[in-house]
């Protein structure tokens, strides 16, 4: 059940004090959003569950530093996306020696981007349930899963999450040129499979 800002502030205060019920109540309205954001990047249920767990723990540990400069859901969502990116890096055995090489999960520390462009759960179900979009959505998810992970993460961050090319490059530690190349390959791959569907979209 959605919470009001005042209720949310109370829940945050209680969660900071270690109240697990309050933390659960704070997270639960956004859980589907967080999970879905992670799953889109990792395209694997087990990895998504692990990354979500990491993300939720990072949210809990970061709560004392949450200053309310952005919406809680936006702030927490960004942490979950960062957790997905970290998970992908670690699955590629990037993490071998020093975890401090990697950026903090806390978006208010590391990411200068405003975080107000988040798709909200409330708006989700209507579009999600539209029958004419269901087939295309399923095809898109299938196709995303077929993309190489490096292309998938760039595509999701740019075309779905609407990050800037520069932010993606910074986050992934590659040049903007590489981001554009990966993005182009991803779009090309997806369009090659789904062009007839996309051209039917009004």
């Amino acid at each position, binding site marked *: 059940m959605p919470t009001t800002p005042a209720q949310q502030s109370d829940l945050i205060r209680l969660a900071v004090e*270690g109240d*697990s019920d309050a*933390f*659960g109540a704070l*997270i*639960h309205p956004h*859980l*589907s*959003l*967080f*999970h*879905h*954001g992670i799953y*889109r990047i990792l395209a694997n*249920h*087990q990895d*998504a*569950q*692990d990354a*979500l*767990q990491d993300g*939720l*723990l990072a949210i*809990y540990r970061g709560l004392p530093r949450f200053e309310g400069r952005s919406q809680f859901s936006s702030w927490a969502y960004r942490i979950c996306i960062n957790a997905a990116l970290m998970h992908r890096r670690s699955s590629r055995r990037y993490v071998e020696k020093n975890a401090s090489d990697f950026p903090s999960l806390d978006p208010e520390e590391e990411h200068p981007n405003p975080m107000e462009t988040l*798709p909200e*759960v409330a*708006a*989700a*179900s209507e*579009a*999600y349930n539209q029958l004419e*979009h269901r087939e*295309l*959505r399923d095809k*898109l*998810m299938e196709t995303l899963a077929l993309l190489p992970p490096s292309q998938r993460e760039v595509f999701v961050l740019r*075309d*779905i999450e*609407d990050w800037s*090319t520069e932010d993606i490059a910074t986050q992934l530690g590659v040049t903007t040129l590489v981001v*554009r190349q990966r*993005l*182009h390959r991803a*779009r*090309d791959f*997806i*369009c090659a499979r*789904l*062009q007839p569907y*996309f*051209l039917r*979209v009004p």
Partner: protein
Amino acid sequence: MTPFPFPPCKEVHESLTELMEGSAPLYKRLMLRLHLAFCDACRPAYLAFLAMRRVGPKLLLPPADSPREAEDALKAVLKRVEQDRSEKKIKG
């Protein structure tokens, strides 16, 4: 001599993302757009790219209910939070 000659289809196709990002120089963008205006082979690809950017975020909105694995992840974290709290109490 033009800085970017009238581009062939292959080059247009490879430049679609650059065009959408607005990162190409003006003259190059003009040439690309000119090609797209007349080329029946490249235009559908460009329109599909644009449509994908427009509808992609709407298509991939999360379902109203969180899946089982998400609930399990939250349960595991809540258990961990509860353990941390208990340990703090014991230490305190």
